[in-house]
């Protein structure tokens, strides 16, 4: 009996654990799901309330007598919900009544009603102390002057089988018939709208060059720190360590002036060269190389190998996980950086925009089409996610170890 209780408690425990984890997981994933789904929607769908996850398309249908396919709506006919096609929208309907009997209302198209006495000399009548204009309204073949009480906009809905059957009702309050359907062309549209293709190329190029450059300088620097004895090494290393925590914004002003001096403002080089030499990458590689057994290296030295040969032929092939980690870190940093490109690349120089800058421009340019904005955001967000999924085996582990050692 006691055993059973224990098992039940363990199941309950596990259930609670997975429940909490799943809730948090949904919170973490939800903005991504929203981004993807919205980026496949049509604009009118994005502004719908309440919001829906799956993108939908209004259904249209060909009806004899109309040139273009008509959108389908649900309409109330004789208390029944039926699918009708919207043949005409924006029809203005006025509610009219004779001045002496305001309850006897008549509905009529605004276009079918003419002012009493002609447009230039319209007759007026006083109702409840206010002057109202009179219109000629035809009722059962008779023309009666009436005043306009209110006006609404309706659509003309036609029966699918019998287009002569018409129903008028407010279009905005009617529920359209929809299919689930995605619009991947949002992506091509946003790429054309905002020079996103160029921004994507620039970002890729900048990121590739920064990753390669940083790997090169960090590997040789880290090797020197970890394995070579020379006077001044430890001083320099302490100096490096001390600067790791210094926030980048400290440098932004003098670095900008340096770029002005050497003429790199507005140039992609300014996004690449300063980021190749980092204390952090060197530190990371040093921490890795220092764990490497010395004996292998000494044996190679005895065989007459040079330091560079040892590094390229022994150490680097054995350091793929560490290199992958540094590459992933650098990739993410270079791909996602915003404030430095914002400062150094002119707003007008769209040729040299990176994705984050393009998004900043897009935000203003497409402020009324969230589907396009979020398609742009997806273009910027998805490549790092792919890199993460590919490299996560190395990456997550090493983020973890950086914390423990640091």
């Amino acid at each position: 009996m006691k055993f059973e209780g224990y098992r039940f408690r363990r199941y309950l425990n596990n259930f609670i654990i997975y429940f909490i984890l799943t809730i948090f997981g949904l919170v973490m994933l939800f903005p991504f799901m929203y981004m993807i789904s919205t980026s496949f929607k049509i604009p009118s769908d994005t502004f719908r309330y309440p919001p829906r996850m799956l993108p939908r398309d209004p259904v249209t249908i060909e009806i004899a007598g109309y040139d273009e396919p008509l959108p389908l709506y649900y309409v109330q006919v004789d208390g029944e919900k039926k699918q009708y096609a919207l043949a005409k929208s924006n029809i203005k309907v006025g509610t009219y009544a004779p001045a002496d009997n305001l309850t006897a209302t008549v509905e009529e198209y605004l276009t079918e009603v003419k002012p009493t006495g002609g447009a230039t000399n319209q007759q007026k009548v006083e109702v409840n102390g206010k002057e109202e204009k009179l219109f000629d309204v035809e009722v059962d073949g008779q023309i009666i002057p009436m005043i306009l009480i209110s006006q609404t906009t309706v659509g003309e809905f036609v029966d699918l089988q019998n287009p002569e059957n018409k129903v008028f009702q407010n279009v905005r309050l009617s529920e359209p018939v929809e299919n689930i359907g995605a619009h991947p062309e949002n992506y091509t549209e946003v790429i054309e709208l905002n020079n996103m293709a160029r921004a994507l190329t620039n970002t890729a190029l900048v990121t590739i060059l920064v990753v390669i450059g940083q790997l090169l300088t960090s590997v040789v620097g880290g090797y020197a720190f970890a394995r070579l004895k020379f006077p001044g090494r430890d001083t320099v290393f302490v100096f490096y360590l001390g600067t790791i925590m210094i926030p980048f914004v400290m440098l932004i002003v003098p670095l900008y002036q340096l770029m002005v001096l050497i003429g790199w403002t507005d140039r992609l080089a300014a996004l690449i060269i300063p980021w190749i030499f980092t204390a952090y990458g060197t530190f990371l590689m040093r921490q890795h190389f220092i764990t490497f057994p010395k004996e292998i290296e000494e044996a190679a030295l005895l065989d007459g190998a040079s330091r560079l040969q040892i590094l390229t032929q022994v150490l680097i092939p054995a350091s793929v996980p560490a290199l992958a980690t540094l590459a992933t870190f650098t990739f993410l940093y270079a791909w996602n950086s915003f404030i430095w490109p914002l400062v150094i690349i002119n707003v007008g120089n769209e040729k040299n925009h990176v994705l984050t800058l393009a998004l900043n421009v897009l935000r203003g340019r497409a402020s009324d089409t969230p589907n396009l904005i979020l398609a742009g955001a997806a273009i910027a967000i998805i490549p790092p996610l792919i890199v993460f999924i590919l490299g996560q085996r190395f990456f997550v582990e090493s983020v973890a170890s950086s914390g423990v050692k640091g």
Partner: protein
Amino acid sequence: MAVPSQIDSQTNLILRLYVFWRILFALLAIFGALAPWLGYFPVDSTWLKGGLTLALSVAAIFSGVGAVQISRLHHSGRMISLILDYLSFVVCTVVVLNTGEIFLGIDALAETFTSGLPFLGIAIAGYFLGSLDEYFPQKEQTSESSLKIVGQWVMLTGFILFLWRVGAVNGIFYFFGKLAQPLGIISVFGALIFGFAIWGMTQQKIAYALHAKNSDEQIINGWLFLSPNLLGFLVFFAGPLLLSFYFSFTDSDAFNTPNWVGFDNYARILNIRFAWLTAPDQLAREVVDIKIYDEVGRFLIGNGGILFAAADKFFWLALRNTLTFVLFAVPLSVIPALVLSNILNSKLPGMKFYRAIYFMPSIAAVVGISLVWQWLYNATIGYINYFVTVGIGFWNNLFNLAVVDPKIQWVSDEKTALLAVVIIAAWQTMGFNTVLFLAGLQNIPRELYEAATVDGAGAWDKFWRITLPMLAPTTFYVVSTTTIQAMQVFEQVFILMNPPEGPNNSTITLVLYLYRNGFQNFQQGYASAIAWVLFIVIFGLTLVQFQRQRRSSIYEG
């Protein structure tokens, strides 16, 4: 010291050449040091001229010393010679690359890069093809396997086609065309000579003649290996850092020569006044000089209060907002992370999957994420208000209440604007912190928990008495890195808010204010001063946490 008998005549000649070369170098350096003052310098900046003169004078002196030491066959002569030649070689190479517009050519590469991509793909495919070889070991180990050779050829062809497609041929012609001017030719020539001088110095005969030891080779290799990183680091990090300190004492505007203004920038930031208020709604101009001071805020005590006014009101608003942001964003991203990591640490299946999911937000670009949240926060159609409405409706139905739907205007209401930013930041950093905590947890020895179980400790006791104290170093790391990140909050507010200062300056942050000053008003001296104040605040916060961690972590080994 010198042992002439061991040196053959050829080596002797080379050494004499080196002495001559060092003297020539010293003379050229002296000429170079004087040249800017005689009008041979394109940029009219006293600082640059002074710096160049100083550097070249030092080089000249060292070169002279080097000449003497080489003639004495002392090893320091070799070291000096190598260092000077190496640095000159680097300078010449950079000048060559710059004159040939290699750095600016990256822009041109970006233009053609896309058309070359398929070929780059072929090159990469070739690499993978070659590495497939490892999975199909051949029986004969003597010859290189055909797969590897094919892979190499495919890689090479792909890369050449790639270079051709992106216009490398034109690029090379352009490069040499640009080089054909005096500066370019001189620096190519210089690079060759310096390279040759270095090569000569590293020859064994010369090294022996100058009494080189084995440990000297390690010293040379060490500095050589470190040099690419160190030189770049000095130019793009350490140098600018010092410059930033200097700028904070000037009125620099990025384009004109900065004037020294002493502590004026800091004085403007710190120029604040406190004044007693006799009534809660007393006007600011009755208690402070509003020609200088603006009201930042007031703390009401009973019938009176204290008015806080500052010469630069926006700085203090920014500081207040930033600290408020840190105060909320750090606990909100650290405490749930601690809880989640403890849950994830249970040895159930699927934990790695959850870990990866939690990690995803911290990978995505902040700019993109902020755009997504901007629409989530939308007051009329956004999901967040929809969830609030649904939640309140459910609550009202369940308990028969009449709670009114607040319809929060997240980003346009000054009360919630900063909160909106806090939520994004907490959402984005939580997963990263979870992974850090998880690693810390996995380092706690199992035995501690087992011993505690034997002693009859419950789960709660274990958490408070083992997990938390043992996790203290990780907690310190997590809290301090999160704080440092949070102090620099910029991108979220810049994208989310329109204007970025938010309604009634409720989301102006220090970095945003720095950006406004430095790059929109171009008061870069003042912006540098703000940067240093920001740094001092960050440093202070980290120091406080470090002290606390020291005091509390009794278990740390």
